[in-house]
Every structure is written in structure tokens, then in C-alpha cells.
């Protein structure tokens, strides 16, 4: 491994490297830890930057392209900066029937952002998501780790005023 590659590995914190190495011990071959490693980096840094991706690739013995192919396949691995919390708003059919479009417009005007954007205070990023499996409580969304159901304009105000 060249000095430059060593440096890049240092772009990951010891803690991240530790967690990734631990995953590797459960698996057959370092490359098998690719998705877990990306999730670990994302947990620590909210998203996977090019530098982090290169560092993970070096750590796992993969090329940038190979790992980025995996990273970009999954829409919940973020390759661009996101806010503290990511809003995953369902845009699938049940939610749409139950007024999902209004909810989307409400959130957009409440946070003053378009779909795919992050609020200027870096708190929220708004992304669409297909069926959260909560159709019986449509419209639904996930904010950070929490699921919100039976959304109404008032609920939106409450949630984001908190």
C-alpha cells in the first residue's frame, strides 16, 4: 500500500475503521463488508463523500468504481451532503390517494425547500420514498429515525415546529 493510500485510510476515523473491521470478521472476504462499511460511514458522517468512499475502497481492497457502483445502487446511501435529518416522504400510490401531494406541498412550503434539497440551517433534507409499508396510515413519512403516520397539514406544522 502506498503512502498516499495510507493517508486516505486515515480519512476514516479509528472508530469507523474499528467498526468496519468488526463487520469484516463476520463475513467471508473483505469486499463482502461493502454495504455495511458504507452504512457505518454514513452513520458517522451523514453521507459518503468521495474521500470517504475512496478510503473505504482502499480498506476493503476494491476500486473506487466498484464500490461506487454499489453505493449508487442503493438510494439510502447518500453520496451528497444531507441535513441532520432526512425526510423520506412516501410518494407511492396509497399515500397519493390519501392526499400525499398536498402533504408534499405543505412540507415544501413549511421548510422552504424543493424535493431533494436541504434547509439552509442544515436540519432537513427532503427526499421521496416509495411505499413505507404503512399504507393503512397513509400518508406517511420517515423523519430521521421516526415514522409519522396519518399526516395532515396540522401534523406537519406540529412536527416541524417542535
Amino acid at each position, binding site marked *: 500500500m502506498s503512502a*498516499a493510500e495510507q493517508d486516505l485510510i486515515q480519512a476514516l476515523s479509528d472508530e469507523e475503521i474499528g467498526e468496519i473491521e468488526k463487520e469484516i470478521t463476520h463475513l467471508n472476504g473483505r469486499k463482502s463488508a461493502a454495504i455495511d462499511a458504507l452504512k457505518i460511514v454514513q452513520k458517522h458522517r451523514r453521507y459518503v463523500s468521495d474521500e470517504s468512499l475512496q478510503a473505504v475502497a482502499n480498506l476493503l481492497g*476494491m476500486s473506487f*468504481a466498484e464500490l*461506487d457502483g454499489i453505493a*449508487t445502487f442503493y438510494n439510502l446511501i447518500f453520496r451528497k451532503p444531507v441535513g441532520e435529518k432526512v425526510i423520506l416522504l412516501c410518494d407511492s400510490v396509497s399515500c397519493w390517494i390519501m392526499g400525499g401531494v398536498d402533504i408534499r406541498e405543505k412540507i415544501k412550503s413549511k421548510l422552504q425547500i424543493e424535493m431533494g434539497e436541504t434547509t439552509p440551517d442544515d436540519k432537513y433534507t427532503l427526499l421521496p420514498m416509495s411505499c413505507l409499508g404503512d399504507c393503512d396510515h397513509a400518508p406517511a413519512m420517515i423523519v430521521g429515525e421516526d415514522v409519522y403516520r396519518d399526516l395532515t397539514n396540522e401534523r406537519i406544522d406540529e412536527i416541524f415546529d417542535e
Partner: protein
Amino acid sequence: MPKIVVDGISYEVDAGNNLLEALLNLKRDLPYFCWHPSMGSIGACRQCAVIQYRDEDDDTGRIVMACMTPVSEGTIFSTDTDSAKEFRRDVIENMMINHPHDCPVCEEGGECHLQDMTVMTGHRNRTYSGPKNTFRNQYLGPFIDHEMNRCITCYRCVRYYSDYAGGVDLAAFASRNNTYFGRHQDGILESEFAGNLVEVCPTGVFTDKTLSEHYTRKWDLQSAPSICVGCGAGCNTSASERYGQLRRIHNRFNDQVNGYFLCDRGRFGAGFVNNEDRIPQAGIRDSEGKYDRVSAEEALSHVADQLANSSGKVVGIGSPRASLESNYLLKQIVGEGNFYSGVSSKEQELTNCIIDIMRDGSVKTPSLAEVEEADAVLVLGQDLTNTAPRLALAVRQSVRNRSKELAVQAQIPLWQDAAVRELAQDELSPLVLLTSYADRLEDVASLSCHASATDIARIGFAVANRLNDRFTAVDGLSETDQKTVEEVVEILKAADRPLIVSGTGSQSKSVIEAAANIAWALQADNEQTAIMLCVPECNSLGVGLLERENSNTLTDLLDSTDTISTAIVLENDLFRRASTQQITAFAAKLEQLVVIDSLDNATVSLSDVVLPAATFAETEGTLVNNEGRAQRSFAVFEGAGDIQGSWQWLTNLGKALSREGFAALERIDSVTAECERSNDLLSGITKVAPTADYRVEGMKIARMTHRASGRTAMRANINVHEPKQPVDQESALAYTMEGISGPRAPLSAYVWSPGWNSNQAVHKFQTETGGPLSHVNPGIRLIEPAGNGSPQERYREVPQPRAAGAGSLALIPRYHIFGSDEMSARSKAIAELAPSSYLAIAPETAQRLSVVSKDGVEFTIGNRTLQLEVVVDSSVDDGCALFPAGLADTLDLMHQAQVSLQKAAGWTPRTTTQDKLIAKE
């Protein structure tokens, strides 16, 4: 052979095959995209759908993918029921939703597999009216254009590039309609085999950038079967012309040699044919030192006069980049004793040693196809990727034999590509690389170490001894080397089909001898042992065979004290063969230097008479590759001006001089025949290809497609009357669209079959998919081992270890696929990737000299002081210095074994950005 029923017709097919291949082998049509004969099936595109019925009573059946369905006794299929046809049509309609339908401006158009399949499935009307995806295209380097919108997501490109060729910088990104095939950012594709993407991608996503500069549709190209002159591998190519310029090189399938793939030197390195330094006319130097243009006749009579009235000896200098025929004729003109092989004594010694081993030894030299079968490979001192690139690609396939074994054990058919890979994970057959610097095959090597040629030879000798103690033992090996020896011995002993690879790359006879000893030692216990020895140029081995009995080399000539008045140099830049000093001194003593060559070069500049020679694209000739296979190359078009094949110049010169036997020489066929007669070792070369009078049903073989509509329009701006096409006297090919083409022709200028306009048509030419061509000769092997299989111990001289230190470094050539080869380096696209000169040294060495990368070092060679830029490279052994082979300003280093370096005073670092192909650090 199981019997299957397809559309009510019963067929016997090969057991173990999939239905798609079985149908193609029956010469039936079925559309497909993702399946590839060299890469197997993954069932990704869903295009090859057919209906399979449970039994005769089942009249609904179910959709299956032909490429994923094994044929077995009694299986019943239908390809032409409506449901199957509709399904396939819908699949293609879906693929076309995001396709730009830009065929008129697409460079794939007219030879596009997607077009062919669209027509075959009958999808005619677009019903989708929504918006389409638009991707951003990438800059991928000087070879390949990228137009992602045309992608149909078949995954062939990444499967070829990563899985097959081992590239790591091309991938599939994102998913669904956003799937993107490219690099993670713009940049030059790293693989030396990237060019095959042009042929592997079934659409116009990856296209040939060098063709694009003067684009011509396939149907308007004039093509001929050719042999790549880029290295000694002898890959078969289909070379194409339009408007008197070479436009492109495509792969020409040969199941024994290159299969479906070429390297990028071969594909993009033929641009030298169009180089502005081409010599169009004969020239004679006048008293003021300027060249006067003269006619061919004047030039010939001038040379004939000079030879007839020469005061001293007349010598001929041959060349390993000229055909057997040309070398032979020159030898006939000057006489046996006055013919010099055109390479240094060193090189001739190495080539001779290789011929000894191949001929008198007991171990067989495999074809490239057989290389892929090896289950353990040991490489000694040869950088395969940069000296015989296609061989490196074959070795890369050999490491997959382990996964194939596992698949056979698990009863998985080998065409089940994803399953076979999944099963094997990272298990590879062993590959051992003992080389002087980091090799591009290292990612799949089980063991690699870098050492000087001497140390490599010593390890090799020791391996042979450990395999069989009748072979000379080696004293004083270091502990690490001893360990390497043991590991290598274990690997080779465990193998069923071991292969030893070496060659002239390390410029060391001992390395080649060590390789032979190992092969012979192994052979005693294992008859499947094989040895492959690489030679540097396209006809090195041919000239080696021709000159087998003749010990005259260029070095002998340069050292000779005879009075030589005239020298005729055949297609050879002597400055690449011996030091500048020697060549300049030699030329100065001559009265007349006659040079026959195609491109201006340093030797041409010294000549008194220059005769313009054809390149491979404008003449015919026989070449012998490093497997000992003789193959014929044909003219694609007629040379401009007075350009003629060297053999034609020499035939005419021989006639002008009334040399014996020349009067009877009519066409190249008669020269080939004479050449064959002159030398037992060349027996068979006349049978390599049909002679000029060969006809199929009274017809010649067409170089143009029958759709070459543009021919009449080519000169319409000048005159609407189309000039008569040139008549080809020299071969069975014709410069027209009239004549036969297609599978029945014994020479395949291009592949085409009704409904199959793309290169995929080749399966119509094969006896079975991936198998031999049914009517084309794959070349004839001239050398088979004479030995009776008993191990022999011929080589006993173990080199002594290099004396350590003393301030001098061993000079080792580092080869560059783009740059080290003389002719390809003069092609524009290749030149763009060629490195600038440098000297690579180990970190320890750098420290001693107190230099860092980009500093300069200084040294003297002969009476010249040279300065080169330093590259510090941790894969270089301390005590060695690597220089790029074959670059103009490092040529003299080739003839030097050692240098003493010092830091260059007043060095200004170069400002180029061209370090990309030099060592990473």
C-alpha cells in the same frame, strides 16, 4: 447427443449446451444481447426468450430464456409462437424507450447489433411518447467515445471490462432507468484491452474514436484479412480503408490465436499507416545532400547500377518487422554470406535459443487458446501486458480454471457465468510472476516477486533442480529466494497443465534457459507441460527461422573489418538495434546506403537512396508469431504514389540485376514458394492461405461489402465517371464488391451475414460458437518439439549473482504497451499515451543519490552524457534502474548493462502531465 424439438423440428445438439448456443450452432437465428461466447450467459437482457413445453400435451408452455436453459433429451421449445415473438418484441420496445433512435448520426449504425435485433424481433412502431433520459457522456481517453444515451443495460461492457479483462475503473452505477456505465469520473480507461468495448457493446455507447476522426460506415469500408504487427502474438485483424487511408482495425476471429479480442496497441496502433512521415516517392540524394524525387524505374536502375559497379562488398540488412518473403529476397540478391539478420547478436542469440527450445526440446508451445487452459502459470522475466498484450489477457483467463473445476464438481454448466463466479468467489488457479518490476497481472497472481534478470534466472534454475535433480543446482540462494523456489515447486507439481512463460523481455539468455529447464524438468512427470516464449516483433521468429543456419547479425556487420561499399536496409531503423555511435560510424564508411522503408526515420535520413515501402496495409506477406504459427496478411488497399511492397522492390531489383531465379518470380505466391523451398524450417508457409488464382465458383473474394454504395460517389465532385478499380494480381481478393464474401470465403475480409450486420455475424462463419472458422485456415504451426518427451538437461550455466553495490545500477528495460513499439508509437492516439523518458529507481537508491521523483539524474554512455527524470518506484529492486524501452531518447540504454548515476546539476523538471502510465508513486 440429446435430441430436442424446436418449432416442431427435431435436432441433435451438443449435451451440456444452452439452447441459445445450440440454436446458433444450428445456424438458426434468435435475438440476444447479453450472452457472449467468451463470457457465457447471465440472463440479463431477456431478449432470447422462447417457449418451453413440459411435454407434447402441454400447449401453453412457459417463457424461458434460451441462454439460461440447458438442452436435454426430449426438451421441446418454440421460438416462433406468437407469445414468444410478442415477448421479445416487447422487451426490445422497452429497451428502446430511453434509446435516442439516433442511428443516422450513430457510429454503430450499419453494424449495430441493436439495429439487427430490433429488425429481427419486428419492433417497428414506437408507442412511447414521454420524455427520455439524458446522460452526461464521459471523456474516456484517446481511443474510445462514450454516448451513454444509447445504452440498453445489457451489462456486457462491465462483464467484459472487469470480469474478463480485469479492469477496475469501469462500473455500472445507480439503478433502474438511471443505470450508468462508465468511470466514476472522466478519465482515460486504464485497461490495455478497453478497445474491445467497441465490439462488445451491442449498441453505439462505446465507439472507436480513431475511426470517428474520419468516419466511414462499415458498408463503405474496404477491408482485408490482416495480421497485427504490434508484437509477436500475431493477432488476426480485419483492417479497413476508405479514400486511401487506413480507417480502422477490427478483431478478426481466430479460435487458436486472438479469439474475439485484441489489445489496444493492435486496435489503435495502426494509424502510422496514415502518418504524414510516410515516404510516398523514391528519392536519390544529390551532391548537395538533398533528395531528388525520382520515378520507381529510375530509382531501381540507379540502385542496380550501384550494386553492379560497387567497389567493395554489397550487404543486405534484413528485419524482424518485414515479411519472410522480403527478407528472403534481400538475401537472394546480396547472397547468403552478405545477408545480415538486422538484429543485434544479443537478440539473435535469444531468438535462436527460443527456437532451440521450441524445436529440439520436448515441451509443446501452446496456442493462445491453449494458454487459457493452463491451471498453473509461471512467468519468468517477461512483462506480458506490455510486450505480448494478448497473451496477458489469455493468462488472465487461465486463473479462472480453478473456478471452472469447482463448477464442474458442483455440476454447474460453465456457461452459467454468474453462478460459476459466485461459487468460486476469490479462488484462482495459481499464477506466479517473477519479474523485474510490478506487473499488470499482479492482481490475480498468487505469488509475485521483483528481481533482476540474474536473480530470476537463478531462482528458475533452482526450481528446475528441485523438480528434478538431474538439473543443475544453484548455490548461495538467499533464504527468501529459497522460499520462493519451494513455493513455486509446490505450485507446479500440483498442476495438471502447468505453463511456463518467458521471453526476450529481460534480455537475458539465462532467464530463457531457466524457463526451459523448468519446463523439461516438469515434463518428466507431466506430459501436459507447456512453454510459451515471447519474441519482440511481428516476424522475429520468422526471421529467426529463415536465418537459423546463418550466424550473421547486425552486430557482426558493424564489427566487420571488410570494406563494405553498399548496404541495402530492409524496413529497419538501425538506430533501434545498435548504439547511435556505431550506426553513424557504419553509415559514414558506406558509399551507398539504400533504405527500403515506409516511414521516415533516423536511418532513412542517412540514406543515399530511399525506396518507399508499403506498410502491412498495402501489401501481402507471411509472418510467424511467437507460437511458431505462420500467417498471411493481405493488402487492404494499394499504396499511394510509388509505394510498393518491399518484396516487389526487391523482386524488380533482382530482375534488373538478372539475379538467378528472379526471372521466374511472378507474383508473391512464387516468392513464398521459393522461400519455402529454400528452408525446411519454413515448410508449410505456402499453405497458410489460398493463392492468387484461387476462385470460389469462378469468383474472387470481395474486399468491399456488396452495399459499398458510396464507391460511385467518392469522386463525384471531380468526375462522375467512376475510375476502374485496381486489379489485384497478388491475391484471391478483389478491390471491388463483386465476388464472394461471407462464410464460404476462405479469406474473411469482414464478417457479414443476412440479418447480421454487426460483428456478431461471426457465429455464421464458425463450425460452432467460439469454434474454428469453417472455411478459413487458422495459420500453420512451423515448429513442433522434436524431443521424445524425455527430460533433457541442456542448460547448465547458472549465472553468478550480480556483484552488489559499487555504485553502478543494472539497467533494465521497462516496456510500455503504448510507446515501446516502433511503428504503433507513430500512430496519433498511441503517441498520446506514450510516456516521456524517465529512469525508475528504488527508494533506497534514490536516498543514496539524494534525489526524489522529478529530479534529474545524469550518466554517461559511450561518449554521450544523458540526463533523465527520476521516478522513485518501490517495486524496483535496489541496485536496478528501469528505463522505458523503445523511446527515441532511451534507445542507447538498451545496449548497456550498467550505469553509474549522479544527481543532475541544473535540472529543470518537465512540465508535462504525462506521468499516467509510469509508476504510481
